[in-house]
């Protein structure tokens, strides 16, 4: 079982967001970077599939700056076998450029399965997985919460509005991971030791023409302060009137 996992280095979800002076990027001062949580589910799932198969290889591929090596090492410490960094000065905002570069790296790799997170928590584009599948000419199943592989095909469950959808697909395929797929492991001491000796190849990023650029970034409007209408049952008519006439939710 040969599995590739596409991962990304992103700001910690606890980050206090501040826009940089250029007005279109994140101020990285005091920001901690982590492995994108959805990609962490993907790495964990790849390791479990390999363990279930009893043999194989898990390769992790990232597009990012040199600092992404640290993120790849985290995946290697969890148990992945080798890493590839497609090194860029910055990750382009155009998901297609990222997908092109990943596809070029992966297409002759003979992978049975390619896993991605369903999205990166920094740009929330949901693009790279499906575009990568398209570039590779493979079926794509997004946002899966369970996955099983058997005899050259996969079965996945996806959460849909009010229920669960079960889909079947042939391998190889691109599958994107949702929360709930598994509980990612913490790197063990021996895993951290071993990760230092695992191969990590660094290659230049080439995504072709970049068609999308971020031109501005802003913080959401501050939430308005709550208002106390009154107390007890006497306040209910006024609350109903406000919900109907002012908030227009009734």
């Amino acid at each position: 079982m040969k599995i590739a996992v596409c991962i990304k280095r992103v700001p910690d979800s606890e980050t206090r967001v501040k826009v940089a002076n250029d007005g279109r990027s994140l101020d990285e001062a005091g920001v901690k970077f982590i492995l994108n949580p959805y990609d962490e589910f993907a790495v964990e799932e790849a390791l479990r599939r390999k363990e279930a198969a009893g043999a194989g290889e898990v390769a992790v591929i990232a597009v990012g700056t040199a600092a992404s090596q640290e993120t790849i090492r985290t995946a290697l410490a969890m148990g992945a076998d080798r890493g590839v960094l497609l090194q860029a000065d910055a990750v382009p905002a155009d998901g297609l450029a990222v997908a092109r570069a990943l596809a070029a790296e992966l297409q002759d790799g003979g992978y049975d399965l390619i896993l991605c997170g369903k999205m990166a928590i920094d740009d929330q584009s949901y693009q790279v997985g499906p575009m990568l599948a398209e570039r590779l000419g493979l079926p794509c199943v997004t946002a899966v919460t369970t996955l099983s592989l058997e005899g050259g095909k996969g079965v996945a469950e996806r959460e849909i509005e009010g229920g669960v959808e079960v889909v079947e697909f042939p391998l190889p395929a691109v599958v994107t991971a949702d929360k709930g797929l598994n509980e990612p492991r913490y790197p063990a001491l021996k895993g951290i030791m071993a990760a230092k000796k695992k191969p990590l190849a660094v290659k230049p990023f080439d995504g072709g023409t970049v068609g999308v650029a971020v031109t501005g970034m802003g913080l959401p409007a501050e939430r308005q302060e709550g208002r106390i209408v009154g107390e007890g049952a006497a306040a209910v008519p006024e609350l109903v009137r406000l919900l109907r006439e002012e908030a227009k939710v009734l």
Partner: protein
Amino acid sequence: MTGNQGAGGGDQGAFAPAAYQAALPTERVILPVGSEGAGDQLEMDVLFVGAGPAGLSGAIELARLVRHDNEAGGSLGDVQIGVLEKAEALGEHSLSGAVVNPRAFRELFPDLSDADFPFRQAVPGERVYLLTAGGSLRLPTPPTMKNHGNYVASICEIVRWLGEKAEAAGVNIFTGFPAGALLVDGQRVAGVRTVASGLGRDGEQLGGYAPPNDITAKVTALSEGTRGLLAQAWLEWQQVPSVNPQVYALGVKEIWETKQPLDAVIHTLGWPLPTDAFGGSFLYPLEPNLLALGLVVGLDYHRAALDVHVLLQRLKQHPLFRSYFEGGELVEWGAKTIPEGGYHALPGRRSGDGVVILGDSAGFVDVPSLKGIHYAMQSGIFAARAIFQALKRGDQSAGPLAEYDRLVSGSYIMSDLHRTRNMRPAFTHGFYRGGIEAGLMSLTKGRFPGRRIVMDSDAAAVRRVGSAEPFTPDGALTVSKVDAVFKSGNTTRDTIPSHLVTGPDVPPEVVDFYVHMCPAGVYERVDGGLRVNAPNCVDCKATDVLGPRWTPREGGSGPKYKRM
């Protein structure tokens, strides 16, 4: 207005906190090597416990000595150096002022210049004030507090930078692995056992359970920082005496983005502390509009209702400070104790069979100059040199490792601490007499008063019960403990078992004392009894000094400091 805001008044009895403290759980902290219960076993040659300035400097120096030796045809070969850290990521449990003396950086990185070091800026100027409730009097800067040539820095950033250097040198850094016990073989320290993770409130194993790991090493260097658990346990086990007991201060610190810039480091004495407490405040510019504010109070304070967090909040309302913070934003909050005992509180030896004790764990802090980072780093460098010689000799017993004590004793660490040996103790006599005596000590280069001033342990100092003056934070300039803990980045899961060992039968007045003592709101008085909100804990260790004993919990728990 009197000087007791947040410190209470009235006299309704007295007690010594020591009477209600549990003993150090030595039987859990010192284990024979090979004891049951460990998952992975890992072998290192040298293990540093704690990735602060001391441990990381030691690891860097040792890796370099080994590399040079191998390059020169030496026979050491591959030497595995490990650094254990309880925080989830490097620097997240490190907190300091800090104005840093670059001396140890220069020694550790002779090829780099000051501009390469992870400092924010050279000290741009300095001012010292004596505060009253509404006013301030500028004082001449005491000789011990002159900071020309020093740098304003964030210890979080220093630790992350040292961590990169250590990794580049081949050191194994294991973050998220607290050491919970010393592994011993006879009288020899043989390594440590880490703490299990994934336990439920009653100690049951949850889905993500991971057992403790045993890491053995030829030498274990205890660089746990202030009030280190393993260092305390080893000193107690080996009955290593000190002339005075170690004493501590509690520092509570905030980082603010401000509208008004600051172009100097500011220190204050006096208000809002009562005159029978020792301490003061600092305000340092990391950048002109990024300020570090802290208040430090000796834990031998007399009023049971004194609350360092509340005093820091009041401090921001003082005219000298208020203008900086109004319209600004509180970015981070944290707390940490500082070993303040100085020369006479140092353990009689800081080395033994298979073990050395570094930095804050040993007590290498000079209170009059408010410095510890360069002593911690220097002690790590000395430890590395002693360990290297011991590895070369193939003998890591107490004899060869005593070289570490000799190196420290012959260095500026010891001469600096000796010069100021009686300054902190003088303040047990109160602020004014202490101030006069400390001035005389400065003039005589430490010879006054010609005798050692005896200090009790903090827990033995008697507390006067009194009511606290109520304080209601406004949520902008001043914050509650709950909001403060949120700003520490603490996201410890709620289902964690309590890591705090409470004494039996804690009476209500002592519960109230704990409530005020803990800056993170861990303790609450509920129906006259003690409620422990263990996940709130930010590992400052004040509780271990005065209240329920602290033990480590699963890796990654506690604060996540970024620029402290």
